[in-house]
């Protein structure tokens, strides 16, 4: 049952990820990305990571992608606009890069050993629950968590600076 669910969801995720690249119309690409996000979120649920699944939908599908769609609609980019002139050299560079990426993926898959799963406790305090993630974030991983928020703050300040410049 769980395996069948995994296969179905994985196929949806990969297919819609491919569709992001294949579509000419940016709006369809954005919609395919939402499909990928939804499938990933469902995969998280099969792994009992309910909190991550919900946050994935709320933050990515519900907020970030809405803004993407907003911008695409605002620019109303037609699907068949003249193609940007491509840099031919980069195309041949893509093959070794893809090879390196695949090799890396193989290495990771080969070298990672199956870990013993922590005991799955159902209920409010099990692995993947809001309680365990919150406790982890604010005790053991407090410093990385705060550093990440500084990173995001930098991005916000940068965006503000860029937006302000046009008004001067």
């Amino acid at each position, binding site marked *: 049952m769980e395996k069948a669910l995994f296969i179905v969801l994985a196929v949806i995720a990969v297919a819609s990820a491919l569709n992001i690249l294949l579509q000419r119309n940016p709006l369809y690409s954005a*919609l395919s990305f939402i499909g990928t996000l939804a499938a990933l979120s469902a995969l998280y649920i099969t792994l009992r990571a309910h909190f991550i699944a919900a946050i994935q939908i709320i933050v990515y599908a519900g*907020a970030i992608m809405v803004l993407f769609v*907003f911008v695409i*609609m605002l620019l*109303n980019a037609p699907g068949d606009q003249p193609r940007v002139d491509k840099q031919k050299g980069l195309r041949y560079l893509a093959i070794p890069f893809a090879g390196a990426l695949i090799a890396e993926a193989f290495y990771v898959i080969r070298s990672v050993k199956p870990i013993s799963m922590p005991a799955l406790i159902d209920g409010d305090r099990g692995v993947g629950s809001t309680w365990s993630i919150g406790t982890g974030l604010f005790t053991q991983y407090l410093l990385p968590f705060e550093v990440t928020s500084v990173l995001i703050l930098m991005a916000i300040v940068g965006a503000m600076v860029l937006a302000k410049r046009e008004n001067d």
Partner: protein
Amino acid sequence: MTELLLEWVIKISVIIFLLLTAVAYVTLFERKVMSWIQLRVGPNRVGPWGLLQPAADGLKFIFKEDIVPLQANKWLYIVAPAISLIPALMVLIVIPYGSTITVAGRAIDLFVTNINIGLLYILGLTSLGVYGIVLAGWSSNNKYSLIGGLRSSAQMVSYELALGMSIIGALLMSGTLDLVGIVQSQSGYWWGFIPRWNIFLQPLGFIIFFISSLAETNRVPFDLPEAEGELVAGYHTEYSSMKFAMFYMAEYVNLITAAAVGVTLFFGGWNGPGVERFPWLSIIYFLIKVAITIFVYMWIRFSLPRFRYDQLMVFGWKFLLPLALLNIIVTATLMMIFWT
């Protein structure tokens, strides 16, 4: 396992049937409230007191011609109403409608499921509902629709933040994201007569929640996505027949959901006097509370004018959001001092 599945199927069918009926009658109620406020009679021709009006409206929707504009993006145009209705209906499985009742010697919980991220599930699905509106606006290939869709996406993203922040205070009090747990944490009384509802400790949180939920359901004074005075009908200008009806259904399902979540979070859900002895009373309390909340929504709709667009953004980002953050800080600090 099969028994559990059967129970779910029955509960979901009953809820969807009752809810869609309720949606039909909320539209009638809305027209009645509007006419009372405007000193008119309202619909009273179809059936006694206009009670068959929703059926007449439904039939009319079915028999109207289904038009797809020539220049529209056909596929998205057809899918958009479903995208806005389906998430709205999916929310209903986590709302606790009442306590546990006994039917034919079998204890039945009056909620479909209680997942431990219930509230996040609701927030996630309501944030997906905006795609229906946005895609409808874009695919109609009509400038009014497009402007409606754009407004809607900006408005939803802006007020979602305030909405999410406003409920954190209530969540801190309850200590769980599960709606059933939230209701149970509000049972009982202070000093024997004041019910332990979150509203008494979180009045600011409730006000922010209420205002943002008005914005999330696109109701006056936040109905800029459909603003009939300037955009004809906004995102659903081009829609007709059942597709148009689906947008309407989604809108009213969202209204009922918003009222139900508000009641669950701040007004003790199905709690009330005598619930322990007569579990059936819990549904009645819940329905009364939801009906009163919906009435207030309508009252606001027919009393207030619409925001201007810049006012909407300034109000959301510079007033509601900081206020919600302040509410979280104050609540958390007070709880640190007094709770432990």
